[in-house]
């Protein structure tokens, strides 16, 4: 992997544009202090306990849910015609863009460096119970995997089967799924770092730390 070339590619286009969609249906209200072009702050603090800029709120059945900016960035546009109206789940209410964070760059590079074990089919995935306990207690990077190891439970339509890991031996360096969401076929479940590649991964960390500006 040519990390320098990849980094240059990211530097040439360091912004990510995205739509803000409502998570569920309800009546939407925009933060009246915001307008297009305003700067947005993302979650901050050691545990991201400080919320980002309040963008809007949505109410259904007297339950109010605030919608916050998930990244530090800029508000590009607001769909004002939806203000005060009942909107369906998934309705796009705003368009934002943000400068890629150090972590995003790192994750992008890691996806190119690690061995990715992909989901064979659309389903929910869980670690098998003994691995799940280990991941929760000591973190994924404490789990060593080897070819043929029973690692996942695949759940489709509430029917469960196990899935064996196939690939190089190593440690789980990144986990790309959570138990609440379906994973599309071909999407990575975990990123595995073989021992021989540890140096390269450390190099990726170093490059991002030194070459990408602070968040």
């Amino acid at each position: 992997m040519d990390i320098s070339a990849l980094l240059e590619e990211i530097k040439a286009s360091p912004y990510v544009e995205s739509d803000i969609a409502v998570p569920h249906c309800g009546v939407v209200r925009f933060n009246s202090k915001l307008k297009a072009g305003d700067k947005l702050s993302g979650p901050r603090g050691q545990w991201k306990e400080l919320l980002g800029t309040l963008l809007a709120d949505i109410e259904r059945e007297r339950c109010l849910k605030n919608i916050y900016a998930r990244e530090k960035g800029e508000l590009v546009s607001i769909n004002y015609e939806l203000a005060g109206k009942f909107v369906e789940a998934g309705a796009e209410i705003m368009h934002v863009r943000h400068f890629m964070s150090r972590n995003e760059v790192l994750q992008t590079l890691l996806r190119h460096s690690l061995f990715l074990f992909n989901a064979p089919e659309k389903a929910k995935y869980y670690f098998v119970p003994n691995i799940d306990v280990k991941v929760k207690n000591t973190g994924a990077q404490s789990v060593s995997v080897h070819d043929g190891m029973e690692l996942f439970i695949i759940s489709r339509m509430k029917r469960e089967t196990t899935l064996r890991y196939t690939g190089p031996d190593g440690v789980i360096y990144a986990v790309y799924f959570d138990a609440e969401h379906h994973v599309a076929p071909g999407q990575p479940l975990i990123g595995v770092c073989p021992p021989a590649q540890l140096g390269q991964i450390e190099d990726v960390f170093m490059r991002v730390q030194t070459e990408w500006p602070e968040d």
Partner: protein
Amino acid sequence: MDISENKVLIANRGEIAIRIVQACRKLGVGFVCVYTAEDARSGHVRLAEELGGSACLYRIASYHDANEILSVADTSGATAIHPGYGFFAEDYRFARRVTQRERGIIFIGPSWRVIRELGDKINTKRLARSLGVPTVPGSDRPIYAELEAEELARSLFDFQTQQGIKNPLVLVKASAGGGGMGIEEVHDLDLFRSVYRRVRNYAARQFKDEGVLIEQRIRDFNHLEVQILADRNARNIVHFGTRNCSIQSTGLQKRLEVAPGFDPASVVYNFDADRLLEDIIRHSLALARKVSYDNVGTWEWIVTREGQPYLMEVNTRIQVENGVSAAISRIKGREPSDGTDLIAEQIRTGLGDPLGYTQEDISFHSMGIEYRIIAENPDNGFAPWVGRIEKFSWNPAPWLHMHTHVPTDAPYDIPTEFDPNLALGIVWGKDIAEVKQRGLEFLESLRLEGSTAKGEPLQSNLAFLKKKTLDILKF
């Protein structure tokens, strides 16, 4: 208020949502449908758009979000909610909330108190025992402690050994489960702990409740049901006969249902089958009267080869297989061509109409089979098949009802988020020979083709259904 002034929000998807829309149309009642992103191409969305336009269709994030459902109900002006089956159908808290909120809405199902009383398998068992209705030996409350579970399993093994059962079996079930999910059997006490832990973990993942039931596994049985209907005053309670649901997957999920439950005219049983059917109907009605049952419901029974019935549970909702009972029953004074529509009856009585007939007005003709058409591999533990359906067609016939949400004129990607039923085919005939012959004719005419992203061909249970058609109603 005339029932036609109502608007029913259908808090469900797929085939049952379609049937509820059709029943509402038949009754002249307005409707509103909801759907999630995964279901955008589902048949119920297309039908709702065709019949009611986009104004009667709302996209939501989840069929499990009560706040969203109620929010759509208010926005659309719905006066009633039909939960279908699954999701909120047997959730008494939801039913109570719907009816007791500031803007009260009718819940089309039994009253929340009845759901609370009977919706819980364990409470049903206790209630049944108090009426002398036979139930399966085992726990009458969910068990959360491993040692207690093991002790109960040990006593059930001992009990079966004392009964002279050569290979005793114990069933471990997720107490919050349903539809055959989260059930395993144990043949050796030494293996109990590992099975218990597996079911408990599965229950925690899928149902967010670790409670487990431990029961004697009764082998060599038939699974029967009694279909009950009552109106809101709970004084008029009738039955629509019995069904036999013994043909199931290895995971104990129904695949083929037959009405009536036995056919002593053509099959030899070790017991008086007519009398047994009368007994389970009588017990079911007694329990329904005891709790003032006030909508549709199904009493589920298992019957041993010797003819001993045990009540398993009561499903306080419309069942998937309601159509096969409707297909063989007639209500006096109604045109036979109209047939019986249990979903329409459920909506009509749920909205407050009196039943308008008695048991004497209901008669049973012919015999029916319902086939659940599913993309799965019966030779590999009924593993679900997921991919794109490219061709789906069958030959229409006057003795066939087909219910499906799968489009027949466009490709359809099977969503993995929901139960895997693709279609229900209901056939009927004057006797067992005719219904078998028609069933096979229907299955032969069915074309179900598709492939995965890798180009692997679609797998289905059609061959399994054909094979099992020959064995219906036999022990």
